[in-house]
Structures are given as structure tokens and as C-alpha cells.
């Protein structure tokens, strides 16, 4: 039977140009790609989405707001009745940009924030950036734009997550995505950012402890696809059922190349929109075979013998491939870590389910967090709660 799914979610890299050179950038963004889509090509591409039942387009980069015509493309997608979101490093969130975001009807702005001030500025190699980003977030929130924050979690910022949670809630953010470090691009050349097994599990423990409590407060903490699966550190719902690249998600690069997911390496390009329509690339026989023609015998050694192999399909495709050169072989699956390092897993469990504590305590705790209610973020070095 032919494939009958649709690319409900499109990730669209508007440009690879970026005004930052972050140490952890998996896209190694900076300069634009050669021959990026023109405005006319991008607008024409938008018109290909409705017949494919696209429900949501997420603009990323690089820094998508650096593309001068970003708002024309976003407005076109919105006119077609499709939800639009945009991910930014926060630097371009000037009042005029916030106003334009609201004007074109972008549903959510995702802003990258990778820790507290010193850590964020160090990872993103720009002193003073953290304060400018938070000012941008505040402008967006005050301007009525829904803001989500994305944190690329690494060994440098892992233990700042509790303080970051308090900060985000205090400034009106309601969505927070935790994205484990993907050792690709510049991140692949920054071993100090790499998460160990223990640290991966600590991230899981933080999520497992804080997500339900935050949700009760109206704050969503969401794990990226590469965080999980099938242990006590995961929430039972929704269950992980494998990578969705090429099943109902697709990634479009700024030069018109198409992948199942933008995090995948270039050898996984499925087509070129300058040569074929998205419809033809999506429904081409043999396309996206790694997910559409998955079978357990294609799994790597990390996953092949797992009792949940059929359901899990080997975790995050990009994490598998980047870390092991194999598909369906996620080395950071909690269940896999539990098997090879039961002691680390037990430590994480004790963090996630402490008998008497009501919040997760990471193994190297920070000093008492500032009280975000009392101290505005701009002066967060001020009062310390309870001291």
C-alpha cells in the first residue's frame, strides 16, 4: 500500500544566516546557504502547503528574523489558514519586530535561552546577550505575543534549570522546551557541552519531577524527541511511538532541499523544491524510507534486542545517526542507559522521586535561587529568597 500520511508539521529554515555564532549550534549557522530561496520562490512554496494538509509551519534558521522578507512569507502562510510559529535567538525582538509578529498573526515565538546570564552569554559568545534576550521576551509578552522558550540543555546549563524555570514563570512565559544537546555542527566540537549518561538522566529526573507541578500551574514543560523513553523518568502520556520525520513532519532548508527533520544531516536529503513540488517529494516511492519502511532488523545494536523496539523504533533518528552513524540506535535512551549503567539510573530515580523533597535536587546544586517574584529579572542578583 502506498504511503497515506501528510506533512502536518513543516519545519522551515528560512535562512542559515545568523547574527550569533553559538558554541552549541547544531546547524553551525552564520552565513546564509548558497542560493537560498528567493522571496518569489518562498511565496510560491507556501501555496503548496494546503493540499498537503499542512497544519503548522515553524520558521527556524539560522536566525529567521534576519531574512528581510520573513514577514511576507509568514503572512502568506497565515493567509492560507495555517498556524505559524517562529524560533529566534531573541536578539532581533525590537519593538517594531514584535509589532510585526503580532500583525502577521504568528501564534508563538520561540526564544532560545540557554541558562542564566553568565552561562547563556558564554555559550552564545556575546556578553550582554542574556539581558537583551530577556528584554525582548518581555517586550513580546507585554505586546501580547505568546512566547515559548527553548533551552538546549548541555553540561554547562543542566544545573541551572530549576532557577531558569522560576525565571521563565515570573516573566510570563508559559511554554518551555528542553532540548538535549545534539553533538552536531559546532556542538560536536565542544566536548564540554556534551551530556554524560548521568547528566542525561538528571535532565530526565528534572523533567519528571517538575513537569506535573508546572502543568498544574499552567506552565508547559515539554521534552524534545531525543529525551526518553519508557522508564519511570518518562510520563506515560503521550507514549513515544518513534520518530515522525517523513510520517507527518518534514523539514525544508533555506535552499529548497527537503529532509524529514531539519536536524538530520545532509546525506538524508530527500529532494529539491527547485526540481520537484513538495507533493512529489513527499509521495515519491521510497521516500523517507527510514521511518516509512522501518523494521526491527534495521535497528542498531543499542536497540535491536529491546522488547519495545517495535514501538520505539530506535528513538530519535538524528541523535542515533549523529552519535552512532546508525539509524534506530539512540544511545541516550533512558532504558538503554539503565541497562548499561544501573547505578546512574538509580541515582536519577532518587532525584525524581525524593521521599521528602518537593522539587528535584540536581547532583551539584546551585546556591539558593533568587526570588523571581521579589526581584525583577534585570536585577536578579539582588534578593535571595529566604536568606
Amino acid at each position, binding site marked *: 500500500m502506498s504511503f497515506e500520511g*501528510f506533512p*502536518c508539521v513543516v519545519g522551515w529554515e528560512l535562512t542559515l544566516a545568523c547574527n550569533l555564532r553559538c558554541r552549541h549550534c547544531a546547524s553551525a549557522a552564520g552565513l546564509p546557504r548558497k542560493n537560498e530561496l528567493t522571496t518569489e520562490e518562498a511565496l510560491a512554496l507556501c501555496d503548496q502547503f494546503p*493540499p498537503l494538509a499542512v497544519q503548522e509551519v*515553524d520558521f527556524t534558521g539560522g536566525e529567521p528574523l534576519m531574512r528581510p522578507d520573513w514577514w511576507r512569507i509568514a503572512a502568506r502562510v497565515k493567509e492560507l489558514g495555517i498556524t505559524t*510559529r517562529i524560533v529566534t535567538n531573541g536578539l532581533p525582538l525590537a519593538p517594531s519586530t514584535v509589532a510585526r509578529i503580532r500583525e502577521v498573526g504568528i501564534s508563538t515565538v520561540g526564544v532560545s535561552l540557554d541558562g542564566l546570564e553568565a552561562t547563556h552569554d558564554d555559550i552564545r559568545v556575546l556578553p550582554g546577550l542574556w539581558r537583551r534576550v530577556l528584554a525582548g521576551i518581555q517586550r513580546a509578552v507585554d505586546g501580547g505575543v505568546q512566547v515559548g522558550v527553548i533551552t538546549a540543555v548541555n553540561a554547562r546549563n543542566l544545573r541551572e534549570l530549576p532557577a531558569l524555570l522560576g525565571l521563565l514563570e515570573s516573566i510570563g512565559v508559559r511554554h518551555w522546551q528542553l*532540548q538535549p544537546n545534539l553533538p552536531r555542527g559546532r556542538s560536536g566540537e565542544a566536548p564540554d557541552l556534551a551530556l554524560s549518561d548521568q547528566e542525561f538522566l538528571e535532565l530526565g529526573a528534572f523533567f519528571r519531577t517538575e513537569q506535573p507541578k508546572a502543568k498544574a500551574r499552567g506552565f508547559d514543560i515539554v521534552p524534545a524527541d531525543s*529525551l526518553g523513553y519508557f522508564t519511570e523518568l518518562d510520563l506515560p502520556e503521550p507514549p513515544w511511538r518513534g520518530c515522525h520525520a517523513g510520517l507527518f513532519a518534514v523539514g525544508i532548508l533555506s535552499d529548497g532541499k527537503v529532509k524529514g527533520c531539519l536536524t538530520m544531516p545532509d546525506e538524508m536529503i530527500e529532494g529539491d523544491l527547485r526540481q520537484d513540488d513538495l507533493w512529489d517529494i513527499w509521495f515519491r516511492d521510497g521516500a523517507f524510507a527510514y521511518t516509512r519502511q522501518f523494521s526491527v532488523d534495521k535497528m542498531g545494536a543499542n536497540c535491536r534486542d529491546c522488547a519495545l523496539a517495535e514501538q520505539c523504533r530506535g528513538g530519535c533518528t538524528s541523535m542515533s545517526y549523529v552519535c552512532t552513524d546508525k539509524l534506530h540506535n539512540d544511545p541516550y535512551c533512558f532504558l538503554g542507559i539503565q541497562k548499561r549503567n544501573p547505578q546512574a539510573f538509580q541515582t536519577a530515580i532518587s532525584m525524581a522521586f525524593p521521599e521528602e523533597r518537593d522539587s528535584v535536587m540536581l547532583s551539584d546544586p546551585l546556591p539558593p535561587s533568587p526570588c523571581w517574584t521579589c526581584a525583577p529579572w534585570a536585577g536578579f542578583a539582588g534578593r535571595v529568597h529566604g536568606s
Partner: protein
Amino acid sequence: MSNGILGRRPVFIQRESILDRRIWVYYLVIVDKLANQLGPVLEARPDERFYQTFSKHVEAYVKEGKAPPKAIETPVLNAADDYLAGRDISLRAGDYIAVQNFVRGQKT
């Protein structure tokens, strides 16, 4: 502009097996409540060529008993069944794809 018996907003039903996946966590993708927005029925918005072509063949079958082209025989008959039974016309994903491929394969 009327599209005859097809109406303006045909929908197709997506397979259950696709829908129950965790869909709202992507690298560098905003996450919120998209999962709640996707149901078993997705709305597609094909272009006018789709409406005109499909409507033409459904009407020809219903009104004149004219057999549709083989490539879209099943979708046309299913749509005709819906119409004759007084139901809103909906298309299974496979039928929708078949019609789209048929329309796209025709020279403009």
C-alpha cells in the same frame, strides 16, 4: 463559485496509526498544544483544479452513469455513495491522494 455537489470543503480522514504519535516535540520547533489541534479528521484545501476535476467526474457518474477514469474510480464511487446517501462527502487519505495525483498528472 460553486463546485456542484462536492461543496467547498471536502475533508479526508487520516489513518489512526499516524495520529496517535507524539507530535509536538521537535528540535527547534515551538511546542505548545498542537497535539490537541489534530483530530482524526484533517481539512485539506486543494486548489480549484482539484474541485473542478473531481466534481466533474462525480457528477458525470451520478447524473449520467458515466464511468470515471480507472485511476480515480474508487474515490469517485465513494464520493457518489456519500452524496446519494445524503452524507457530507469525505475522502479517505488514499482516495484524496489518488485524486490529487490524477489531477496533477493532467496537463493544464
